[in-house]
């Protein structure tokens, strides 16, 4: 026993890593920020000293002023709310359908053989091609927009989840069998944790597409929403409003993506550890 003990490392590998990795990450962040911040400041200076006009591409100060104006009127929150509601509802519908159908197709050969060819066929259609049909079926208001977003979310989630279930290591499943895990236990104790990392990736991809499609849906006709701000800015010749809306899209898109990460992190701690060491 003592001989074996001496083989053991005395401290966990990577125990010192977080601090070092933290400062390295900060450095990478600063390096990455140099280019966009530098360009913004440069552009601001050029416009301020009159070397550039900045009418079609407004300088940061004017975009900031526009944002402030939209904020103060309370208008911005109404637009954000409308867009968030569409993305949220569409994402919920699309991801739940993608999770359920994807899991079924990954788990059961029969289900896969029946539905996968059709889904792959439908996937070949560019999602925006559905728009006229959705408008005919569901009208020009919320329903058709949400349907489009749900479609956009569904495919990556379906693909990611079914592939994740299919790629679960047979050797790990066998461990479950050795400990006599039956159907439901095998799913909850082995399959679900095994596919979770890939499911999170699939949901993030789905959400990204949801944001893409909400822009398309709102550009095609809406009286409210961030996409409406884009169209309105174009029609009234207000590039500062367009850029402001784009910025808001970026920030909120990033926040919702981070939300998925935050929610899933406690369940994927075992993986984080691996990344830190590797």
């Amino acid at each position, binding site marked *: 026993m003592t001989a074996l003990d001496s083989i*053991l*490392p005395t401290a966990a590998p*990577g125990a010192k890593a977080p601090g070092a990795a933290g400062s390295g990450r900060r450095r990478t962040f600063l390096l990455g920020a140099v280019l966009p911040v530098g360009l913004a400041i440069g552009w601001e200076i050029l416009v301020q000293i009159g070397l550039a006009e900045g009418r079609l591409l407004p300088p940061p100060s004017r975009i900031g002023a526009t944002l402030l104006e939209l904020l103060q009127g309370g208008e911005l929150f109404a637009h954000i709310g409308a867009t968030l509601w569409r993305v949220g509802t569409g994402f919920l519908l699309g991801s739940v359908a993608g999770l359920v159908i994807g899991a079924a197709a990954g788990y059961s050969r029969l289900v896969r053989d029946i539905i996968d060819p059709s889904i792959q066929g439908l996937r070949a259609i560019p999602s925006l091609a559905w728009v006229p049909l959705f408008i005919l079926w569901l009208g020009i208001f919320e329903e058709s927009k949400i349907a489009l977003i749900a479609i956009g979310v569904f495919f990556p989630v379906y693909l990611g989840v079914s592939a994740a279930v299919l790629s679960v290591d047979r050797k790990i499943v066998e461990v479950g069998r050795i400990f006599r895990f039956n159907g439901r236990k095998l799913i909850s104790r082995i399959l679900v944790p095994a596919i979770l990392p890939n499911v999170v990736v699939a949901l993030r991809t789905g959400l990204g597409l949801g944001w893409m499609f909400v822009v398309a849906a709102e550009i095609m006709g809406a009286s409210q929403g961030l996409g409406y701000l884009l169209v309105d800015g174009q029609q009234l010749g207000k590039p500062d409003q367009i850029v402001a809306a784009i910025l808001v899209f970026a920030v909120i898109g990033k926040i919702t993506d981070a939300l998925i990460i935050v929610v899933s992190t406690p369940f994927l701690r075992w993986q984080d550890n691996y990344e830190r060491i590797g």
Partner: protein
Amino acid sequence: MLAIRHLSKTYPNGTAALRDFSLEVSGGQAVAIVGGSGCGKSTLLRLIAGLEQPTEGSVQVGGEAIAEPHPAVGLVFQEPRLLPWLTVADNIALGLDDIAPAERVHRVQEALRSVGLASQGERWPRELSGGMAQRVALARALVARPSVLLLDEPFSALDALTRSGLQDHLVALWEETKPTLVLVTHDIEEALVVADRIIILRPRPGQIDAVIDARLPRPRDRDSAQFEDIKKDLRIALDHSFRHQVEAAE
């Protein structure tokens, strides 16, 4: 007691992995099964563990027929196969699913201590070395106190030093509770360190070629003359078995 009677396994594609294999191992005995690759030794273990169904014949543990994984039979695979999302302690607790939580914590601690990893329970499998991970796998198989312990080339992926350390450790653990032990290996020395009886398997289809008695006093000294003698016998028997195969192939 483990009783294997006329066990045969032919896969649907026609490959005969095992033919008419019979073996009795009394309680507390340790048997090693040695043979080259493809001799059906892994298939044999999978059949005993109930992971596969035999084409013919039966496996009985303590008089009870094994048709599917059974709590009395523990299995250690070639790889640790720890669930990466469970801590070391939770991996070991997999074998104790039906036991009250308080008792479970106690048993897991005991198992961790027995494999020399008492303070490592909260670590993730990814953080372990190969030898440590395999010790966790051993603890996971032993924590339920099986009456039959099956080991499928358990140390073959480890370096020589770790391997011989773990072989000795396995013997020490086995002597504590003395389950019936079946070790599949291609390492002659490993078979001799662990087993009382060594069975040489001949491939395609797997069948018994020779049985060698290896009842040496424990703990076994790898450098003793007796050990060397039996090792030589075993090597000759294996050579003979291989030559036989080559002739048969020609």
